[in-house]
């Protein structure tokens, strides 16, 4: 598969955006500036990037509790994301959602989701609407290895397969569901094997190789657009941080992390870029600096923004009814 330089640069840009955004969020959490549950995507950047680079702006995604990477890759604005992590009124959700619920329907992002496995069926619904309306849009559905034991995985894949829905199921197999390793939460090694149960294509790719992900997803997207139904793509990867910030990761050996760090998806792309003269080192450096700036701007935006007015707490439950607030 031949990739254009623009493509490659776009992917690289997404990856470092994610990495830098997440590193910053990590520090902000450590400093106590942001709270709640924060699940970082560091180490897994190639998956979201490879997937979303295969999608058009009018395609959709469903995301997970570990959603920052997906959202950035699909075009989410760092400013509104960061403001949301701070719970500010300028955040994507006006401070109502936080890290686990960032969404941007205008960009086709049907939301991060705090319920493990909730996206499978929602993605089917989006796919159903595209099929129904006769558009050739698709919906990519992100989920983790451990979520493939959730009820919804099965319901969703069965529905999509039976109805030939334009959905691409993307499993981010990072080897763990919180503390439980894959071997302890299921009796299979390759999750792509589960495709057999629905008679759909299933494939396992190196989730730290953005080009491999891109290629696999491209094919799946093409199938979906042609009305040939869903595909299950398993991307093997690893999360560098604990499950959430604050997790001491007692359940996994340090060496395992070290091994995976050697497979860091970002230097792999940098190497390719330099070796193939996609960019010069200077250009690469400049791009990195630009994104550092972007991230800092996002933090500044968030810091400068106001906390939401408490009266807004009861708004947005319904399109029409506004619930009563406190009388105090």
């Amino acid at each position: 598969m031949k990739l254009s330089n623009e493509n490659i640069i776009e992917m690289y840009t997404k990856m470092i955006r994610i990495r830098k955004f997440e590193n910053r969020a990590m520090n902000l959490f450590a400093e106590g500036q942001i709270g709640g549950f924060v699940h970082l995507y560091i180490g897994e950047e190639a998956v979201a990037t490879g997937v979303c680079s295969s999608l058009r702006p009018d395609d959709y995604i469903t995301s997970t509790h570990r959603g920052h990477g997906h959202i950035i890759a699909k075009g989410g604005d760092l400013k509104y994301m960061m403001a949301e992590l701070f719970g500010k009124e300028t955040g994507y959700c006006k401070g109502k959602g936080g890290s686990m619920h960032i969404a941007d329907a205008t960009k086709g992002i049907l939301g991060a989701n705090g319920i493990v496995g909730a996206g499978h069926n929602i993605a089917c619904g989006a796919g159903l609407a595209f099929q129904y309306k006769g558009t050739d849009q698709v919906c990519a559905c992100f989920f983790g290895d451990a979520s493939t034991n959730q009820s919804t995985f099965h319901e969703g894949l069965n529905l999509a397969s039976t109805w030939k829905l334009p959905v691409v199921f993307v499993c981010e197999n990072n080897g763990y569901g919180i503390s439980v390793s894959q071997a302890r939460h299921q009796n299979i090694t390759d999750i792509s094997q589960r495709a057999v149960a629905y008679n759909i294509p299933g494939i396992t790719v190196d989730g730290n190789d953005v080009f491999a992900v891109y290629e696999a997803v491209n094919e799946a997207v093409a199938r979906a657009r042609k009305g040939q139904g869903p595909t299950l793509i398993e991307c093997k990867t690893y999360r560098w941080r604990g499950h959430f910030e604050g997790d001491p990761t007692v359940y996994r050996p340090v060496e395992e992390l070290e091994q995976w760090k050697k497979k860091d998806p970002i230097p792999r792309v940098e190497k390719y870029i330099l070796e193939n003269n996609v960019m010069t080192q200077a250009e690469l450096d400049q791009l990195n600096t630009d994104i550092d700036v972007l991230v800092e701007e996002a933090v500044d935006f968030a810091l400068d923004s106001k906390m939401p007015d408490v009266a807004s707490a009861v708004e947005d439950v319904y399109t029409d009814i506004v619930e009563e607030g406190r009388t105090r």
Partner: protein
Amino acid sequence: MRELTYGQGIKEGMRIKMLENPDVCIFGEDVGLFGGCFGVTAGLFEEFGEKRVRDTPISEGAIIGAAVGSAAVGLRPIPELMFVDFATVGMDQLVNQAAKMRYMFGGKLNLPMVVRLPSGGGVAAAAQHSQSLEAWFTHVPGLKVVYPSNAQDAIGLMLTAIDDDNPVIYLENKTLYAMPGEVEDEVKPIPFGKANIKKEGSDVTIISYGKQVYDALKAAELLAKDGIDAEVIDLRSLYPLDKEAIVESVKKTHKVVLVSEEAKRGAYTGDVAAMIAEECFYECDAPIKRVGALNCPIPFSSVLESYVLPSAEDVVQAVKSLF
């Protein structure tokens, strides 16, 4: 005027909107050729085709989830679960997704979907096919909940529900499906949050909805013989609730009995009773009575079932205890 059954009324409401708007569609278990377990969708498959009236696998989570996803990107789906009891299987999709997505996303998404849920006992279907779960749904911010008691209201509430941009829980009582009723030639949408005073009265207010409206009316008749003039309110819409109608009535009668067929403990009627006790306590001059099903699962044997479910006689007794 014409006569339609309750079930036909539900169908007519859906059909009108399906003719009007190509984005309105139905899916659920056996809703197609089979016409639904209670025959409510019979004929719609033939009229609108498989695309718009679609059988699903037995996956309640997928039914609700597909409704959420498709509503989020532009359809106006009407998912049906065969029995409200099966909502338990898709509860996350209903409560954590459908009800909360708009709010969690800062109001930036609409989810126009109407979830049809056949409810209630009375057909010897036993504990897992006879529940009334309105108390759960009305407790969930983000859902609207309606429960028609007759064909005309079934149509009017359905029209409003389909046009609503929020998830609506549309409860149906399965013993009413075959009940005929007078229906206007052209039924207008019935706004949510408007109760229907079925009978005016000055001595006591009987508040009910769904099937119990008939128990209430029958009780009112019986009470009339004893010189008690009961007002009967059919809530129709459980949330939003027509507080005004309730308060007005209580101001007039000063006595209230609430009736539903839910297990009494934790029932929706408790919430309405609590509202009255909080917001118009001084208007009440007697205990706020509630009539419900007994606090047990619904038994199979009809002698047991009819003992467990409330009756007009129970309503009469409850009212009389206040005089």
